[in-house]
């Protein structure tokens, strides 16, 4: 019987979750030993997985072997995003890996010679760095779902943030998505003002199925004339962001309520979330900023030429980094819970002091919270304290 190879449902997979590839149909020839079914993982287009091709081998159980290939295709790459904000739509090809899987078999035949043969190859699958928790995986499993079905097939935005959250008027809101086919699409940003007027800005763009897309959806970026936060003294209440694909009419929407209240501090945290998108969270609460120093001292003897300015204890090395304790400001429960992604994220950036459009200073940071209370129902208002640390060790000689 010929070997067959099957990849779990969906063409786009998250590398942080098991990706099951089943090789079946192999039968150990008479007199053979060490019979193994093989699975080869190889890059086919675009950015190669470092070290590919990878070959794994397993003894079959009941005629088949199931390989979890996620460890082979998990290649985190430093992520990029548009800052300062410029274009509305940017496609990235470097963050999804195009891979194929090939089945094979290997055994030592009755003559004692090693035999290895390769069979069919799968169609191209796409891998994105990210992953969901086991509970979600279990839910998907029970409901015959997967990442591709939930997020790619429906062009759902790659975020755990609620679909209607409160944002700053000039917040650099970003949404990310992956299309399931290459086709044309429209990005609509529609602002609704307190006087019941609205304005919609639509742009057409091309989607490619092996790319991840960044949508910078701040209304002011989309159209500073017609979609400012305050137009003719009238405030924008909220705005909707919608992606509509042309061929199959898939639609994804998020709504953002604009908070026009004054906040003494205005910071944002960008972080790479577990679905491969980069979220931007407005941190409107209080800020405690520190500078943490590490130093090594050395002693040296008093010498004959020593003066009033001479020291016998010297700093032989010293380095430091900034750190912040920032309160998120009042958030909804859903938004607070979505911040767990920020605490697990390996890449985050603080946009410090950014009350106006494209202002502020972007600093790579690490979220160092180890234990954080999300909310306490004794209170009706929820906020979160984030511990951030600069992702640099600064020193100068």
């Amino acid at each position, binding site marked *: 019987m010929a070997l067959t190879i099957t990849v779990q449902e969906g063409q786009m997979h998250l590398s942080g979750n*098991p*990706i099951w590839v089943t090789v079946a149909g192999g039968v150990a020839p008479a007199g053979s*030993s*060490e019979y193994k079914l093989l699975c080869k993982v190889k890059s086919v287009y675009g950015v190669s*997985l*470092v*070290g*590919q091709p*990878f*070959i*794994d*081998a*397993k*003894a079959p*159980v009941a005629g088949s072997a199931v*390989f*979890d*290939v*996620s*460890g*082979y*295709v*998990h*290649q*985190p790459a430093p992520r990029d995003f548009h800052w300062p904000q410029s274009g509305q739509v940017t496609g990235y090809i470097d963050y999804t890996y195009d891979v194929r899987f090939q089945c094979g078999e*290997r055994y*030592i035949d009755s003559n*004692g*010679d*090693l035999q*290895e043969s390769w069979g069919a190859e799968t169609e191209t699958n796409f891998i994105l760095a990210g992953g969901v928790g086991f509970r979600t995986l279990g839910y998907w499993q029970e409901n015959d779902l997967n990442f591709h079905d939930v997020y790619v097939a429906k062009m759902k935005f790659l975020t755990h943030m609620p679909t209607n959250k409160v944002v700053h008027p000039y917040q650099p809101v970003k949404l990310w998505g992956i299309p399931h086919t290459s086709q044309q699409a429209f990005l609509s940003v529609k602002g609704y003002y307190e006087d019941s007027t609205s304005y919609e800005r639509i742009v057409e763009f091309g989607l490619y199925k092996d790319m991840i897309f960044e949508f910078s959806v701040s209304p002011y970026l989309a159209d500073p004339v017609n979609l400012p936060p305050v137009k003719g003294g009238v405030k924008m209440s909220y705005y909707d962001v919608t992606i509509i694909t042309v061929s199959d009419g898939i639609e994804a929407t998020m709504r953002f309520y604009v908070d026009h209240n004054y906040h003494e501090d205005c910071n944002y945290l960008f972080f790479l979330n577990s679905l491969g998108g980069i979220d931007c969270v407005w941190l409107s609460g209080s800020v405690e900023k520190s500078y943490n120093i590490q130093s090594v001292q050395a002693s040296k003897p008093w010498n004959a030429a020593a003066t009033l300015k001479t020291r016998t204890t010297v700093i032989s090395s010293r380095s430091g980094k900034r750190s912040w304790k920032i309160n998120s400001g009042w958030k909804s429960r859903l938004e607070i819970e979505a911040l767990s992604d920020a605490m697990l994220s390996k890449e985050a950036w603080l946009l410090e002091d950014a009350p106006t459009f494209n202002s502020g200073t972007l600093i790579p940071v690490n979220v160092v919270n180890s234990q954080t209370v999300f909310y306490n129902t004794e209170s009706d208002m929820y906020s979160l304290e984030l511990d951030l640390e600069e992702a640099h060790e600064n020193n100068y000689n």
Partner: protein
Amino acid sequence: MLTLTYNGNDIPLDEGFSVRMSWNNPVCFFDQIPGDAGLGIDIPVNVFSRAYFGHPDRFEKLRATASSRKFQNVELRFDGFLLMCGTLNITNATWETYSGWLQSNVGVIGEQQQERDLTDMEWPEDIAFSNKAIFEEDVDHYCAPQLKNGIWWEEKGGLTKLPRAYYDEDGKYNEADTEIGKLTWDQITNYKRFVNHRPYGVVEYSLKGAVVTPMLWLTYVIDQVFKMNSFFIEANPFRNVIDLTGMVVYNSWSLIRINPVFETQSHQVFNEEYVPDTPLPVGIDLPIAETNEFWREEVTQTIINFQFYLGNINYADLLPQISMKDFMLALQNYFNVAFFWRTDQRVDIIMREHVLEGKVWDIVSETYVTVATFDLTDYFSGNWIIGDQKDVTLKFVQEYDREDRMFGQEFHDLTERIGDFAAAVETFAELELITTDREGTLRLVRSENKIYEWKWSVEVLKDINQQENQVDVMKWEFVSTGPQPYLFGSGDEQEEVKSKLSTLIKLGDDAIALQKGNMASTRSLWNEFSFRVGFASAINGYKLTPVNPISSATLNWEGDDGIFTKRWKTWSRFWSTRLPVEGEFYLPLNVLYFVSNNIHRKFRTEHGEFIIESMETEIGLNLIGKTRIKGYKL
């Protein structure tokens, strides 16, 4: 997530479970075949693990032997990525924990097979000798190359007397008998001392004194040794590099068997124990009748003729008694190669010089190709720790065959006099023409494989009246057989690179051994022979030779075509002055896969190139720790 499976069954692990993975680069080891290992494995005792490993309370009793504490087919994976497979060795068991370590497959091979002699392995038996005119390395298992060995038959069979002519001191012609083995004389007269005499393209063995010695191709032996351990050679310079192709493994076994023709004969034997009834009269001869009492009759089955025939081949008879480990180390340390165990049951033979040149075997083009050095800069986490630069002299030591009188007992290690050596010469005649060397100069005469010293000596000469005169002379005087250990470097510290492999001496057109042989009829009187190789090729009519007939590369260490220049020159320069470095890297799984599967290659960071000697990574249940790499800067 880190998973540990035993025969495909998941073993539950503690939340704090971690394992220290270690990988070694065989290229950097000269006295062992290093294996990879997963160290510090602690498995919690629970209902699952007890089912596999036994109740800890009774572990010591039930699993009293080391082998019973080994569990094969254990796999360590992270997110499905196979980190290591091999044998779990449980060293201790308590109520809470089984403690042990994971031995990679190469380590398993090491333990089970490395100490086993090649001759004890399952080689083909009772194979009819194929007396071919053309032997092909890729087709045949063996070749029958011709060489000279005039004492192969020594101590086998009876002696015969040969008249030896000589002149006495008065110049008069004399003859005296000298004794020589009958079969030795037959070999000399019928086969001109040749083993595998090939006067007409095939081995001639119809006459008495023939020696027929098939010699296994080295590539066949290597392939089979690994195959018998379920490993298979992939990249193999002994097949693909011209200088190294066409070698056979020497042996002193002969397929000739003896069918003795004998008959019953009676002999009168003097009975020394006979004591007459009455005392013998003093000074008076006994009558003849009485003398008969001193004789008794003895019957023997006397061999009146030998019928020789060709027996079948047992391949094990054609191999030296050498363990698999020594066999591999011998090849490694002679030809400057290293055996690299891959995870797919294949073994690549890596040429160390290729490591420095950045060459790898390309399975598609079946050639060695130069590849870009893999860059680890993106994963480098800090600064290098630079060690003390070495400055050592490399001493390449070969183990010569002590049973071959061409080497014999006259070998003396002249390492301490390395500074006295001048260039080798081909013949003694050439040496005698050199009279301008300073006293104490040593030179190797390649054709004789002997080392001579230019020194002050006293010669005793006789004048016309036969009176002895002592004369002070300068002369080339024999000091040792060669070749000597080859030395490279200038450091005071010496590092020995030992190999049990050697070759034969070539005089004129022929390789020569002076070594007693072995055959089925005299198996109980086994004459040792060591691991030696030589080239055999149709180009020179299958004459065994230490010089490659195709490329002129030799198996001797000296010279432009010698082993050192051809195989060791670049590596030795690097290794004798190597600079140890150590650094930490954060390697993602796929990069870890690449590095561990290509650990024999050179790597780079922005600071330059280096080769890895060993690397260790601590891997926890849900995290991959930093990888500590120890290596040498290029």
